[in-house]
């Protein structure tokens, strides 16, 4: 074979390798876009739920194109699988990979390039020219390691009391690693608890609690299937810090939809109990009890809920005194219960009893 012919053959061979390489690269790119699309669909479904329920979001600042795309996705998804909204990642992925979804995926990529969809941060390298989007490339794939090192710095600043330096570091950490769930959780906890105690003014305290909420909401946006972030926002912030049991129950309920620690269900039941939704709380705990029979504490909680339901039943039947006695017993028995004292006061008013100590003694003694 002549030298020229040989070179041509080898050149053609090398070229033959490059064609499938570029085809596979295109395939990988499409898969990455689809994963971004799937994340966006999940994210939007969670957001839509909040908008509809008017519990978390008061305003909807999404673009009309984004809302329209989501509606089309839901319509098509539901026609292909009636449970599309509730599907887990793998079955949802199987639906989204179907050819029927290709035009919607193209629309999504187009809107993403125009920054008209609320993308998950850190997942945008394939679409967004923003500098922060390329931090992954900047640190040669060691993005998570750099985020960890900065996180250590964050901890150092915390121990030095340099709160103002902590905030930008927190932001940088989650920009580098938007799936650093613990960073959102611990960062928000620092903001809502440790930072607020440094201030005396209510406004300052509220400012940092609000920042904690925003930080966790950002975490949820980036990780819509992370139970930990919902439970942190529900329990650590709304339940314990703000005593907003409605929002706490909402977020804890969301947390139970994903893979979660057992305590989340107990906390959900507790927040429902605080909302005076004893029947629902009892159902949650009974279901939990079947799956975790070894945990003893919920048996006490179940007994308490049954007593509360009994008291409500008695009240409905007009037996106010018996209902009062049950509530009074609960109040004495569990000082941490915040519903019982309020119910005692309410029933006392209904019974026209203003001299509480005598009756309280009476009930306690009889018990």
């Amino acid at each position, binding site marked *: 074979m002549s030298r020229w012919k040989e070179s041509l053959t*080898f050149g053609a*061979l*090398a070229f033959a*390798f*490059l064609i*499938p*390489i*570029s085809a*596979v*690269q*295109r*395939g*990988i790119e499409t*898969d*990455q876009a*689809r*994963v971004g699309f*799937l*994340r966006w669909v999940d994210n939007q479904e969670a957001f839509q739920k909040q908008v509809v329920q008017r519990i978390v979001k008061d305003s909807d600042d999404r673009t009309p194109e984004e809302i329209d795309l989501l509606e089309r996705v839901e319509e098509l998804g539901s026609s292909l699988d009636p449970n599309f909204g509730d599907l887990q*990642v*793998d079955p949802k*992925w199987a639906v989204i990979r179907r050819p029927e979804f290709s035009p919607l995926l193209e629309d999504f990529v187009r809107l993403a*390039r125009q920054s008209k969809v609320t993308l998950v941060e850190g997942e945008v*390298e*394939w*679409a*967004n*020219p923003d500098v922060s*989007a*390329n931090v*992954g*490339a900047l640190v*040669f*794939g*060691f*993005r*998570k*390691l750099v*985020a*960890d090192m900065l*996180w*250590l710095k964050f*901890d150092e600043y915390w121990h030095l009391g340099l709160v103002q330096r902590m905030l930008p570091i927190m932001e940088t950490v989650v920009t580098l690693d938007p*799936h*650093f769930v*613990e960073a959102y959780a*611990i960062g928000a906890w620092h903001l809502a608890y440790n930072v607020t105690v440094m201030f005396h003014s209510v406004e300052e305290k509220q400012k940092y609690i609000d920042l904690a909420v925003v930080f966790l909401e950002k975490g949820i946006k980036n990780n819509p*299937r992370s139970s930990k972030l919902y439970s942190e926002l529900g329990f650590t912030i709304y339940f314990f810090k703000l005593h907003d049991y409605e929002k706490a129950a909402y977020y804890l309920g969301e947390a139970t939809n*994903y*893979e979660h*620690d*057992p*305590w989340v269900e107990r906390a959900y039941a507790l927040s429902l109990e605080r909302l005076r939704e004893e029947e629902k709380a009892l159902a949650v705990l009974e279901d939990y009890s079947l799956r975790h029979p070894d945990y003893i504490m919920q048996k006490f909680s179940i007994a308490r809920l049954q007593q509360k339901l009994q008291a409500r039943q008695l009240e409905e039947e007009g037996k106010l005194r018996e209902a009062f006695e049950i509530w009074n017993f609960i109040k004495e028995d569990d000082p941490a219960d915040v519903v019982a004292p309020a119910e005692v006061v309410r029933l006392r008013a209904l019974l026209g009893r203003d001299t509480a100590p005598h009756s309280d003694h009476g009930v306690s003694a009889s018990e």
Partner: protein
Amino acid sequence: MNSIVIGLNAYRESIRRKTLIAFLLFAMLIIGSSTFLTVLSPGEEVKIVKDVCLSCVSFFGMLIAVFAAGALIPGETDNRTIHTILSKPLRRITYVVGKYIGAQLTIILNILLMSILFLVILYLQSKRYTEEAPKPFSVTALVTMKAMLLVYFELLVLSALAFAVSMLSTSATLPVIAGIFIYIVGHSVNYLKNLSEHASSEFMGTVIRQFYLILPNFSNFYLRNQLIHDDPYIPQGIVKLFIYAALYAGFGLLIGYILFRKKDM
């Protein structure tokens, strides 16, 4: 058959090289000491261990791959042992493939050793910081090994290209520098994509995009980070990534052979 014999020889030769042993020892030291970092980050112990170890395997894996693949043939040329081998009735393609197999065996052994230590450290940390409902360690071990496989796929591409460059050189310096350069380019190639989408003309955009599609893109393998941290959004599997790495390995090997076949020895 001859390729395998040459490969095994190259492997034996490689594992005796002090540079590679030093890299491995450094890597093992960092993986082992990652456990001390956990003291500084309460609540984040397992994550820190995973990130430090994965990055360490990636980084030292890169150095080992570049040195193992890039220094094999220049080393033989330098020692003049290549003349003895090629004077025998042996086709050059057999020799090239054999050497490449040897380099891969070296890389696999090193990754395996680092992975085993990583798993041991991860196991100890997981036992120490147990959650309320811990996952069985076998599940963690499986995803860790999958992530290690992705590290290896990346090194397969890198070593193939460094191996191809080594055919041009008589010393190990050029392929090593080229390998590190390829590593940096491979991690930065996404810039080209952004550039193609915002190019001044459609023609320029198409040209840049074609470059983007054929250049080695190591960010494809970032999936390992998601895998190791149990990100629920990893439904796409790793088959395409394996095909990508295998095609690139074949391409590197072919270029290597083209450069080597007429080399005057």
